[in-house]
């Protein structure tokens, strides 16, 4: 039991995929322009990560070593296509704003990384907890980044069309640089520097 909780915590804090391992930065930087995108991306990644970890863990004793990477990629690609089609069918506007980054989950190193490094060597319950932990860790990181970018870049916070609050002064004169690609690099580097300096995360 303790081991399973450890697996869950590992992804959220100790080896957070974005903040510590610095994996999966491409979608993190590219779609973190609004909180809506962050939630959509997290849901998609979480689903693919959990399902791929379950399947990889289930077939781990039968997978020939020599073709394991192609097998993982086929499984991940299938899951991603399922997510992509489902999103296009039921959440067309979200699918439009995430665009190419949904198909690109196939090559997201968090997912292949967890399949190879963890799920292919561990039992199903552990693999599930690892995937949930990693997914939540990814979600927390991308949500913090998109929160900061949205606040500084537009001056107000709106989630799924509902305005939550306005920053007085900033909403009239927002700093669009934070919404631009460059802002993503600024925010993530300042965030990492702050977290390391304050000792919240320790560099390995």
């Amino acid at each position, binding site marked *: 039991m303790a081991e399973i909780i450890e697996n869950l915590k590992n992804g959220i804090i100790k080896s957070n995929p974005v903040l510590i391992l610095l994996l999966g930065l491409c979608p993190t930087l590219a779609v973190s*322009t609004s909180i809506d995108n962050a939630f959509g991306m997290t849901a998609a990644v979480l689903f693919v990560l959990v399902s791929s970890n379950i399947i990889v863990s289930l077939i781990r004793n*039968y*997978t*020939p070593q*020599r*073709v394991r990477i*192609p*097998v993982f990629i*086929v*499984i991940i*690609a*299938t899951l991603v*296509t*399922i997510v992509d*089609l*489902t999103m*296009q*069918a*039921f959440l*067309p506007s979200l699918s*439009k704003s995430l665009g190419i980054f949904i198909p690109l989950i196939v090559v997201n190193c968090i997912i292949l990384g967890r399949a190879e490094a963890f799920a292919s060597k561990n039992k199903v319950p552990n693999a599930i907890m690892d995937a949930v932990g990693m997914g939540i860790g990814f979600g927390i990181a991308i949500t913090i980044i998109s929160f900061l970018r949205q606040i500084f*870049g*537009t001056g107000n916070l709106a989630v799924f069309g509902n305005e939550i609050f306005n920053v007085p002064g900033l909403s009239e004169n*927002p700093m*669009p640089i934070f*919404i*631009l690609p460059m802002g993503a690099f600024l925010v993530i580097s300042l965030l990492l520097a702050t977290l390391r300096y304050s000792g919240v995360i320790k560099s390995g």
Partner: protein
Amino acid sequence: MTKSNLKKEIVPVLFLTFIVCISVIFLYATNSVTEEYIEDAKNDAVNAMLNEQFTEMDDYSYDENLDFYTVFLNDEIVGYAFIAVANGYGGPIELIVALESNFLQDDEVIIHGISVVSHSETPGLGEKIVEAAFSDQFNGINVDDVALTKDGGKIDAISGATISSSAVVDAVFNVVKEKAEIIRENFDLNTEEET
């Protein structure tokens, strides 16, 4: 080749083939479930897009060969619309351009309005092409006046986003010139056939 070697070569191939077959089955199933909904979602998007231009409409038809929409209200044609793609600063800008139906009789082509369907322009600058302040400038003007004010037209460019503005203007001008001609010819043919 010895027997155990053969097995070592064949098993991975068969395993991968097996996984691919299963994945194909799953994808086929997902596709057949979602196909209909994706089609509906696309239709809804087109409807919403046309509705933005023609607030009083109840139906539309799409000409696949000539790529334009005819918009109806109570079976009467109220206007035409088509998609224009402009070469924006941050990538393609997809626009819908609507025309009043009376250009078929008159010589001049009057634009009913335009709206942006999708774009990837810079937030805070080029993104302003979606705002009414810019796009409403096109409402009810003659196609020959579609040019930036500095080029003698009637459209004020967005300050700081000249590339985005002129991309939209050029795309609207070109597509209207082209499609108006096509729709006219097509309409003449239809009426000739009827008489």
